[in-house]
């Protein structure tokens, strides 16, 4: 234990001290069960990933493929908060899409995200207005109902566990093909004068099953 306290004070790597402290706590939990009597689980000597210091945990998480990172997000609250972090997803984004996704696609995404946000505001505003209207006018009950329904759907979205404007959401939108982005499609046509190259603007979405794009 002397070693530990010494390190905590004098090492310039502040976090090493932190690691040691955490370890001391963990090993105490293991050896001296009376200190952790209230928690029966602890006596099983099982490592909980969540006891690991942040940086060490990141060592593992940053090595997981995107699908596993998503799985980890489903393990518990604390891991979900970590796994949706832009830090991990920017790496995946760069690795898989850096050469493909350019500014135009990113702008399109930003616009999409912004429009979602606008929708949220609009609906809220509209519901209040609609609420008043229902008092003043019975001629428009349907409109009021419609707005009510929209708001219901929207509040579900707002409670979503993922932040709309996160890199993870961006990655998933591309990966699942739900996001169509602008691109130029080059076609090599086998015409009667030999090969011809044609080019047109289109919206494309990714199909992860076949690793190809669809254009429309």
């Amino acid at each position, binding site marked *: *234990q*002397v*070693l530990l306290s*010494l*390190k905590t004070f*004098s*090492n310039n*790597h502040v976090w*090493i001290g932190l*690691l*040691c402290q955490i*370890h*001391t706590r*963990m*090993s105490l939990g293991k*050896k001296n069960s009376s200190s952790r009597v209230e928690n029966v*689980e602890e006596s*099983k000597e*099982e*490592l*909980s*990933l*969540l006891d*690991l*210091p942040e940086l*060490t945990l990141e*060592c*593992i*998480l940053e*090595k*997981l*493929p*995107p*699908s*596993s990172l*998503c*799985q*980890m*997000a*489903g*393990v*518990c*609250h604390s*891991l*979900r908060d970590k796994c949706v972090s832009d830090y991990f997803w920017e790496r995946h984004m760069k690795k898989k899409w850096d050469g493909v996704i350019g500014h135009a696609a990113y702008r399109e995404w930003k616009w999409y995200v912004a429009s979602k946000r606008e929708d949220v505001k609009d609906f809220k505003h509209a519901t209040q207005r609609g609420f008043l209207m229902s008092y003043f006018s019975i001629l428009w009950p349907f409109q009021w109902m419609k707005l009510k329904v929209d708001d219901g759907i929207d509040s579900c979205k707002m*409670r*979503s*566990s*993922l932040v709309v404007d996160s890199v993870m959401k961006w990655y*998933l939108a591309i*990966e*699942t093909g739900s996001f169509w982005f602008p691109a130029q499609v080059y076609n090599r046509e086998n015409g009667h004068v030999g090969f011809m190259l044609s080019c047109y603007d289109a919206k494309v979405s990714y199909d*992860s099953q076949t690793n190809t794009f669809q254009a429309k």
Partner: protein
Amino acid sequence: MAEEVSSQMNSLSISETNPSSSATISLVSGDDIVFKVEPTIAKEMETVQSFIDETDGKITTIPLPNISSHDLPYVIEYCEKSIAGKITKEFEAEFVKKLNNEEVKELFLAANYLNIKKLLDFLSQVIADRIANKSVEYVRRYFGIENDFTPEEEAKLREELAWTFTGVDPDDEDEN
């Protein structure tokens, strides 16, 4: 403290017969087994080395209460290979083949405690490989994590992350 030399020491070819033992560092595991190692090995362990530095090398017996005599030889073996520049893909594959899940976790903690960057990096990859494409339930069991989501939250997550719930490997129950 009873000075005992583990039988594993021989296989690790650590110089227990070395007469100039003043230079060797004694690492004492949590269960009071002494492992004598060359100073170069200690250098690989940042936590140990900085302790030696702080005491100007006067103290050469270092207690490692968090590391068992079961795990320490693995750590030493890895450090020896590392110094010799013999960390190859083959060595790592062999090394990890000997370890069950529990041992991997314990070694990971040991590497973390001793602050051995290379070993930490290697083991985090091993853990990542072992939990990649496994179900949420498997990961919870593996790490001893309680599910603290409400059924509603869990259903919502599954819906949002639907694509990742396809292609999950079946859980192998016989993991250690």
